[in-house]
């Protein structure tokens, strides 16, 4: 009896992304969604294999060689699941039930030290310039839209911050 062929990896998305390698990790900035992602070494390796040709089994084997992780296809599916959630794939991966991280650690018998090798995609929403401001005047605070007032201090005040009140931003005690 022949074993079914291993599924092929989906293609990675490249359009609208800024990609910067940092040692064995990858930083990715999504210009469309203004989200930044950090791919750890395992996720970086899996993403590099997302070319529409490499098989999942071959990717698992590469993970084993590069990171001395058990050659488990579940690891690859877990990485693909995270990459898809981060919208870093041009195609949706096959629908495969992916265990939770805790379950994965248990199934693979990993200790705490080895668990850091599991694929992780960490994401943030990039701040607007206003969100990175060090302070606002009370007048400026009043002109912000609700999502922009995140407790920045009011310039010259030692007690007041710019916070959301209902559908407006206004200065009040921090």
């Amino acid at each position, binding site marked *: 009896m022949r074993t079914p062929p291993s599924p092929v990896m989906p293609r990675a998305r490249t359009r609208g992304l*800024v990609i*910067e*390698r*940092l*040692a064995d*990790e*990858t*930083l990715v*900035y999504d*210009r469309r969604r*203004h989200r*930044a*992602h*950090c*791919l*750890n070494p395992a996720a970086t390796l899996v993403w590099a294999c997302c070319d529409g040709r490499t098989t999942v089994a071959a990717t698992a084997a590469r993970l084993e060689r590069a990171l001395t992780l058990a050659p488990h296809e579940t690891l690859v599916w877990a990485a693909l699941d995270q990459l898809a959630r981060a919208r870093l794939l041009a195609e949706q991966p096959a629908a495969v039930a992916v265990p939770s991280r805790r379950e994965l650690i248990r199934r693979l018998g990993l200790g705490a030290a080895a668990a850091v090798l599991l694929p992780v995609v*960490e994401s*943030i929403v*990039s*701040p*607007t*310039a*206003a969100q*990175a*401001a*060090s*302070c*606002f*005047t*009370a*007048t*400026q605070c009043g002109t912000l839209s609700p999502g922009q007032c*995140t*407790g*920045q*201090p009011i*310039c*010259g005040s*030692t007690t007041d*911050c710019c916070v959301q009140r209902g559908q407006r931003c206004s200065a009040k005690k*921090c």
Partner: protein
Amino acid sequence: MSYGLTLGIRTTDPRVLDALVRRLPPGWTPARTRRVERLYSLIVGGPTGARGIRRLNLVYVDEVRLARSLELDDVLHAFESDLALYVAEHARGRLFLHAGVVGWGDRAIVIPGASMSGKSRLVAALLEAGATYYSDEYAVLDGRGRVHAYPRPLSLRDGASPPPAASTRRRARLAPLPVGLVVVTRYRAGARWRPRALSPGRAGIEMLTHAVAARRRPAAALRVLARALSSARAFRGARGEAADVVGAVAGGRA
């Protein structure tokens, strides 16, 4: 001129010029051209001839009103914060991060953090331990990932006096420093300093969170951060008293 940007400032009352100049970003120089990319106009108010009636102070950026107030200080604050943010976002060849920075030996310690996270207090404590003051507002990174000074006077929110080392007067020009240590922390009363090491990638994400031009120039931001972090260590954790962190930094334990 400030960080490659040509900015214009005009006022109806020359007596406020000194106050305006004090609020310009560090390192500004007079421009030789009359063409500017952004023009601030300050219209000074005050008492009118009519009894009990005062004119408002107004500040405009180009043709848009930025602030109006009976208090001159309010509009000066609006001018200062808008100008600082504009320069931070549009500076040519520099990436501005909201962060405190001190020099420690031949390296910089960068403390990225939101307002009210306690970074000025930590900067002050590091200065008392012998660090050199670079900034408590912005880390200014060049294309090689080195940190330049942005020496605005250190301001502590509880009104405490900053240490003498924070003085920005008569200071020799500070050399840019490579980043040696990144400390991502937030003050939490009673917390013990037990930081976790961050990988360069995760440190990069943390720093990007505080980069003013992250949306405008993401490619440059990532490139500069990658260079800045190429030989830096990074840690993250809540801190209690600033002295705990200073002790760890001074002892080489971060």
